[in-house]
């Protein structure tokens, strides 16, 4: 079914500190913009897939959203894979459309950890909090330390990721953090949990985003102006406890990418631009390896000398990613992938024909991959 479903429309709120906004109100704004972008009437929608908001959750939240949208969906609900949810839901929507369960699906996410609570990112890890094991950054730091000790990966390799994302974010007028970052500034960034520094870590942003998914055939029939074909998708998952994983440095990104690339009929060499989930800089390095863009352990060498910046071998996160555009988990990467395939990015990669998007959740617990084409 490669290419049979499309992303027909994209929409998002402002990114950053948005006091007074709820996930519900931001979802409705993003949906209205996505439907306008697709030039599709609201009443064509018959499916609503919603990512679980981390700053606060109410039961049957998908139905609250459907009510606020004035819809009675045939299929959908709330999904929890952390930041991997968005691409996973896009793929479930595509499969549901293929199976005749619905025709036009909304996939939405919204959260307000900036003005609400970021407690989800700082709490103790269950029984192990007794050892001082707290917070999302430490989970990634544990993986980063193993990668550095096992492969000799340097702080500057992590820094190259931050520098690239911040450079691209600085060119994006909608970015939450528009200040570029030099490698020297990165080296002076305050330590949080060694080996990670402040500038290795995700922004905490309020915001909402939505996309419209339908079949390519339906998009043609409805006169959707700029549909972007979904060439492939995949997912992968591993254990809850970081400590229990057989390997800290190979993640479910590996099987997710193999599944998606096989469906799309591509290899890493076919990819012109990538949007790789950058909640923490180490995530990008490991994703580059798991996806096969470079050999295992070699991502530190791969990202040197601007290779992942605009004009380099594999430009990534061309709107700034989670380190610069918005900390909202994942959908902004899908939306930027769509802009790249439409030729409409603020940091457009010339003649880009294939864009890979990576989403992941928890501490590399879950992963999902999307391959977009033209």
């Amino acid at each position, binding site marked *: 079914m490669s290419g049979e479903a499309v992303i027909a429309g994209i929409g998002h709120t402002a990114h950053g500190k948005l006091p007074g906004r709820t996930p519900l109100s931001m979802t409705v704004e993003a949906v209205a913009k996505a439907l306008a972008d697709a030039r599709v009437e609201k009443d064509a929608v018959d499916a609503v897939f919603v990512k679980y908001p981390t700053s606060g959750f109410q039961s049957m939240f998908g139905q609250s959203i459907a009510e606020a949208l004035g819809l009675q969906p045939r299929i959908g609900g709330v999904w929890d894979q952390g930041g991997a949810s968005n691409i996973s839901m896009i793929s479930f929507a595509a499969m549901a459309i293929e199976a005749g369960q619905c025709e036009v699906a909304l996939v939405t996410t919204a959260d307000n950890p900036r003005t609400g609570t970021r407690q989800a990112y700082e709490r*103790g890890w269950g029984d192990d*909090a007794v050892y001082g094991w707290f917070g999302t950054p430490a989970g990634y730091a544990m993986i980063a330390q193993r990668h550095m000790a096992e492969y000799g990966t340097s702080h500057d390799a992590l820094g190259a990721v931050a520098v690239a994302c911040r450079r691209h974010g600085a060119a994006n007028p909608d970015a939450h953090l528009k200040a570029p970052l030099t490698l020297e500034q990165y080296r002076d960034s305050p330590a949080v949990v060694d080996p990670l520094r402040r500038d290795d870590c995700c922004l905490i942003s309020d915001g909402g985003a939505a996309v419209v998914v339908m079949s390519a055939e339906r998009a043609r029939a409805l006169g959707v102006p700029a549909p972007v074909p979904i060439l492939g998708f995949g997912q992968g998952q591993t254990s809850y406890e970081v400590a229990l994983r057989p390997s800290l440095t190979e993640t479910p990104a590996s099987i997710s990418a193999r599944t998606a690339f096989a469906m799309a009929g591509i290899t890493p060499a076919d990819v012109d631009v990538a949007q790789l989930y950058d909640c923490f800089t180490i995530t990008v390095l490991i994703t580059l390896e798991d996806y096969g863009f470079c050999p295992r352990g070699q991502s530190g060498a791969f990202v040197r000398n601007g290779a992942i910046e605009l004009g380099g071998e594999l430009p990534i996160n061309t709107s700034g990613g989670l380190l610069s555009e918005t900390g909202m988990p994942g959908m902004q990467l899908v939306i930027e992938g769509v802009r790249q395939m439409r030729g409409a990015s603020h940091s457009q990669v010339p003649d880009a024909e294939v864009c890979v998007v990576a989403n992941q959740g928890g501490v590399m617990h879950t992963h999902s991959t999307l391959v977009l084409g033209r």
Partner: protein
Amino acid sequence: MSDATIDLPEPSPLLAEQRAALAEGRLTFQRCSECENAWLPPRDRCPRCLSDAWAWEQASGGARVISWVVYRRAYHPAFAERVPYNVVVVELDEGPRLISNVLGVDGAEGLAIDARLTLVAEREGEIPVSRFRLTDGADATGES
């Protein structure tokens, strides 16, 4: 000190049993009677073959380092005065992995992949915990 109390989940009955042994200085883990798998944290069934036939075994206390972090800020008031402190993924010689701390080192000084460790059973407040120290006479590669 009320704000410094660590909020921990109510221990499961099996975790309570494991902590009771630890309070007596014995670090225990579960071993499957069907497939020989050894595991922590405690669960009702073997996570490899799903058998409910298992027994507690006492760990030798020998272990090695898998990875580590050093907190430069405290996420909870109980740890404010310990910063910088390490948290380490430890693999017991019998196989199970756990989250722990390595005592007697400054931050991460001396920690390395496969560095040899020895159990130190102690308490965090009222709660029995399994911490470790670097094994005397072993270098960072684990060779004695």
